Structure formats: C-alpha cells, structure tokens
C-alpha cells in the first residue's frame, strides 16, 4: 500500500498539482470569482473613489463632532489652497470676504468722519467769538492746534454707569457705576432698555444689522455698542467725544472674545462674567473743564485731536484783522504825511 501511494506521488507531482487546482475550482469557484471581483474593486481607483464619495460627507460630520483632529489635519491643506486661490485670482476671495469687511469698514470710516466733524463744529462755533480769540492766543503760545484748545475747554463729560447686557434675553451680566450715580434696579432697567431697542428696531424698519446706538435725554446720553452676543450700554452725562465709542467697541470685542464659550452656554448664571468687570470699569472715564480727560481716557483725548489738526480753519479771522491793521497803518501814515507835508 505504501509503495503504491509513494509511487503514485513520485510518478506525477505535476498531475497531482493539477488535480488539486481542479478540486479547488470545483469546490470554490463561486468564491474565487467573488474574490476576483473584490480584488478588481480594490485595485480600481475609480471604483474606490466612487465608494468613498458616498460616505465622505457623513464621515466628516461624524469625525468633526468627535474631536478636532480633522480640522488640524486639514489646516495646512486649507492654508495652501487659500494662498493658491489668491495667487490665481485675488478678486475671488476678496468678493467672498467683502460682506464681512464692508460693514466693518463703513463703520470705521463713519466714526472717523464723525470725529472730524465734531472737532470741526466745535472749532467753527468758537472761531469768531471773544473766547475764540483768547483761545487762538493760547494756541499760538502753547503751539497746540486751535481745535485741540477748543475741545479742551468745551468737553465735559462723565461716564457714570456701564451695563454689560446679554443681547438675546436683555439680562444684565455685569454692571459698574461711579459711586455717585444712583442705581435703580439694574435688571429691570436693562430689560426695558432692551425692549425699547426691540421696539425701535421693529417700528422703524431698520435692517438686521442696524441697531440703536444712542439715546439722548437732557444732558444724559446712553451709548450702546453691540457685539454678536453682548451689548455694552454706557450712561454718560455731558458731551462725550466720538473716541469714547471706540473705547466701548474695544471693550465689547475683548469681552466677546474672552467669554465666547461662556456666552453660548449662558443659562442665567452670571458669576463667570465677573472677570469682565475690568473692561467695563475702564470705560468709566471723565473729563473736566480745562483739563485733559482723566485716567485711561487721556490717550484717547490726545488721539481725538489728531484728525482735527489737518482740518482746523485757517486764520480767516487773522486775515481780516491783519487787513484792518494794514488799513489803519496806511491811514496813520497818510495822516502823518499830510501833517508833515503841510
């Protein structure tokens, strides 16, 4: 028996391999075809791409909600893409960003112009008065531009209270005040202020982006600066410079940035906002008659006069006075000559 087996194997090794292959084919033919098909799918990039495309969107959503690795992984690629896009056609990206930049630019320009006009107005109203003459003298003596002297003598204001308000609910997140200001219940006042803003917005057909920026009553103004989630309302007595608005905007931006997560999750607990009090307190500025604005406002007052420098009215008054003096001199000379000539 052994002999026959061995001899059989020894005689036809090739044949037994063939037999094995045939056996495999008979038993496993359907599976082999399946495997061949699968292999084709794996190797063909088009088919792989097609399949991946079907699940790609969902996969991204799932991954993005799990962790931040996807954003990190894509970051270098996106940066390159943006660079290339700008290189290819800068207009494309510029157009895309414009809706964001446009309003921001307009706002900045409008405020800048308002500042210029304010100092111009002040300057003009004093140009032809006795006080104006006195101040011109002062301007010559000190070397400061006339507009700056005017502003210094007329600007009296005091920020008495600042509210930090959650826009959607009208709830007060923080409130600071100079101790002399009377504080009625801040929550109710803020609620009513929010209601008034909603009312004005609804009634006067303002567009989504336009908001009530200031209210005036007697010698009080309330200036409101808004960010996406919070609003800052400053109660000001007197005549504040436009630069103050920049200060309020600055405070809003800082608070929005630092508290962005807390704001999104806000459900009535205001304790996390105590750290923003510093920004609110920096807005409690004052300027007294004859002195530069105190504290942090000093820089902004100096900055305020920069645009005025280029726009102060030329010495029209001096021209008239000069002409008058020349006429007077000619008259006197004329009289002297006529006296001596006689």
């Amino acid at each position, binding site marked *: 028996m052994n002999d026959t087996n061995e001899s059989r194997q020894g005689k036809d090794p090739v044949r037994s391999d063939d037999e094995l292959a045939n056996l495999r084919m008979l038993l496993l033919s359907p599976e082999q075809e399946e495997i061949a098909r699968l292999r084709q799918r794996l190797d063909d990039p088009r088919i792989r791409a097609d399949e991946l495309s079907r699940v790609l969107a969902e996969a991204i959503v799932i991954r993005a909600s799990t962790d931040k690795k996807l954003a990190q992984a894509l970051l270098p690629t996106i940066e390159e893409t943006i660079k290339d896009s700008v290189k290819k056609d800068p207009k494309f990206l510029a157009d895309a960003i414009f809706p964001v930049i446009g309003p921001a630019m307009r706002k900045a320009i409008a405020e800048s112009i308002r500042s210029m006009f304010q100092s111009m107005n002040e300057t003009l109203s004093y140009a032809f008065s006795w006080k104006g003459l006195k101040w011109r003298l002062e301007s010559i003596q000190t070397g400061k531009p006339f507009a700056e002297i005017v502003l210094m003598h007329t600007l009296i204001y005091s920020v008495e209270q600042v509210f930090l308000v959650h826009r959607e609910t009208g709830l007060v997140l923080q409130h600071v005040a100079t101790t002399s200001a009377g504080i009625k219940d801040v929550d109710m006042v803020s609620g009513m202020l929010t209601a008034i803003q909603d009312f004005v917005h609804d009634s006067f057909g303002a567009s989504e982006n336009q908001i009530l920026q200031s209210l005036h009553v007697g010698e009080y103004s309330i200036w409101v600066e808004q960010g996406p989630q919070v609003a800052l309302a400053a109660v000001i007595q007197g005549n504040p410079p436009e630069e103050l608005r920049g200060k309020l905007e600055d405070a809003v931006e800082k608070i929005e940035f630092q508290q962005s997560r807390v704001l999104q999750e806000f459900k*009535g607990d205001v304790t996390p906002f105590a750290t923003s009090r510093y920004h609110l307190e920096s807005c409690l500025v004052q300027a007294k008659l004859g002195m530069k604005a105190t504290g942090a406002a000093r820089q902004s007052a100096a900055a305020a006069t920069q645009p005025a420098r280029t726009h102060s009215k030329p010495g029209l008054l001096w021209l008239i006075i000069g002409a008058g003096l020349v006429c007077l001199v000619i008259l006197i000379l004329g009289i002297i000559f006529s006296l001596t000539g006689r």
Partner: protein
Amino acid sequence: MTDPIKKKICMLGAFAVGKTSLIKRYVEDLFSEKYHTTIGVKVDKKTVKVDDRTVDLILWDLAGKNGISEMRTTYLRGAAGYLLVVDKTRVNTLDVAMEMHKMAQDMLGKVPCILILNKWDLEGKWDIDEAAIGDLRNSGWYTIKTSAKTGMSVDQAFETLARKLIE
C-alpha cells in the same frame, strides 16, 4: 453666597385678563403701566427661592392683545419660559392663549410654561368649565387657579415656574 440665577420670562394673554393686576402686589416694579400702551411691554422682577438657590425672574409683561397678529413677538426672544393668563369668566381668552402658546413654541421651542386661570373668585356667563380644565391638565398642561383680589396662588405660580426653569 452665589449670585442669583437670572431668567427672562414672559407673561402673555388676551386683553384685560388681569395680568398686570395679578402681579402688581407680588413683584418689584419700577416702571409705570403706561409702557404697555407705548412700547407694549413692561419689565418687572420677581425674586424666588427654590431650595437653596435664588432665582431672579425678569418678567416681561406683554400688553394684552386679542390676536397673535397684533403681538410683538420680538419681545419673546430669549425667554426661558412663560405664563399664559386667561380670564376664567371669558372662554374665548383660552383660545387666544392657545394661539399665543403655539406662536411662542414656534419661536422658543418646548420651554416651561404655566397656564394661569385668573379671576377664579368670579362667576360669569362665559365661564371656562371644569371639564375643559380637566382636558387641559390631561394633555400635559400645568394649570393654576389664581385671583388678583384674594391673592390666591400667585406666589405659587412663580415658584412653580422658577422650579421648572432651573431643573
């Protein structure tokens, strides 16, 4: 002591259901009622203690309107919950309340709300009957019977709402 939790709530209802009289003695108020006719809302405050926490309910009392078309829905923005007030002696105020409820839900989602059946101390021709109230309760409404005159259950209404809000 931690700061109180602040919540904005609204009070809605048809004209003359007695919203303002209901709360007058129970809230801190600073502003006169003339704001109802001018801007359509008046803000009051009610401080409530729930267990060991203090909740400041900033209450936006919306001027009563007889239809949702007249409502200023902007005032509902950001509210954490609301009170719907009906006049027990006028059954049509219940319909108005339900319309307002639907509008508020569309805007705010499913937030806590309480149905207040006011003027419970009075009898009238167009009373809302107990069966209707039973139906409301069965369909999930939390209802409270109140009276401005007797002061019945007003504080309870606020406490219940505050509790639901911080759960």
